[in-house]
């Protein structure tokens, strides 16, 4: 695996490298070089399977982190390729030519995060939300509770605990001291 990282590092600039388990690795690459890395991994290194493609919203840094999860059937290794893109007018190159089924993930991300993938087939179609008119709901600045109260009728008499306070009290006594989860490239 280290040799693989070295080989890739020779080709392009690798922003970060993280070994989570013996069979789970993450690399962070530049946005412009993603397609190059992915096609290299697929064609030359045997990572033929795209398991999933998902996004994380780093609201504080105004960035989306996309993770392309690859799998190599020969050496049985998971490799996550991460890439950071800007949050405003988020746009990413489509990889549906490398893996045909990626269009479905891209359609989902387009709907739930508002990340645009130009050229990806059927990307504008609604995936789980039919007739959605608000901002993409998985963005962290979307207030889902406020939306729910505004749209769906509340039944009076429901009592609820604030999850953050409740979990702090019950489970994480020293919540304030616990470190924030860092990105790989920080």
């Amino acid at each position, binding site marked *: 695996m280290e040799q693989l990282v070295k080989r890739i590092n020779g080709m392009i600039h690798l922003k970060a490298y993280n070994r989570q388990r013996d069979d789970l690795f993450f690399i962070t690459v530049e946005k412009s070089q993603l397609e190059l890395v992915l096609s290299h991994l697929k064609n030359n290194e045997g990572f033929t399977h795209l398991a999933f493609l998902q996004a994380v919203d780093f609201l504080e840094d105004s960035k989306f982190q996309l993770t392309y999860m690859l799998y190599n059937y020969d050496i049985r290794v998971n490799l996550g390729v991460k890439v950071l893109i800007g949050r405003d007018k988020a746009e990413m190159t489509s990889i549906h030519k490398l893996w045909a089924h990626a269009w479905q993930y891209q359609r989902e991300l387009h709907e739930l995060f508002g990340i645009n993938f130009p050229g990806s087939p059927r990307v504008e179609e609604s995936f789980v939300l039919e*007739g959605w008119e*608000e901002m993409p709901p998985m963005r962290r600045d979307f207030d889902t509770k406020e*939306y*729910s*109260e505004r*749209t*769906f009728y509340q*039944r009076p008499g429901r009592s609820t605990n604030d999850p953050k306070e409740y979990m702090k009290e019950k489970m994480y006594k020293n919540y304030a001291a616990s470190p924030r989860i860092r990105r790989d490239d920080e």
Partner: protein
Amino acid sequence: MNRKHIDEIEKQMKLANEGLPEEERKFFADVIPTRVDPFNKYWEQFLNWARSRSLWMLAFGTGCGATELRPLMTSRFDMARFGIFPRPTPRQASVFVVGGYASIKTIKRIIRSYEQMQGPKYVIALGSCTINGGMYYDSYNTINRLDYYIPVDVYIAGCMPRPEALIAGFNRLKEKIVAGECEGMNEYTDKFDWFKKNQKEIIKDWNMPDYNW
């Protein structure tokens, strides 16, 4: 009253079906459903007795609660001994079991299925999600109260309710049917405008007929 007025009134009495494209509107019914009252009190009591002993359930797994319907059908809990049978099509079913949370995409199908069911129809809403949203009370995509969209006869609380609770709910429904309290079909037609207003408020792309016969 001249011809123009009559046309105007007739137009108001019909459903607009505005969600459909122009050329498809003629394929669907545009009649507003009307109230159908029982024929005779004592005859209706007899029919209700028979209906309560032969409940045909629409097995439409709308949420995670549908998981609890499978053990109900099989040998451990065996709902057939209560006269409850799964039925594959809404046309023939009389009980609609809404299995848990209903997202907006699902509530569209729930409404279509409910409206396609015939005659006296009953709704059992299972799980907390249908009562007040349950653990999805603050979700952007799931409704909180089912009774704003279709009339509900029996709620079964729990997350998820066990099959025993479901059997108790079905028995409660039977008692209500025998007592003649389950008139959800007429409630729906009486408050048709109110239900439609609520439904259209959350279903933004209404691309189906206003009433699905």
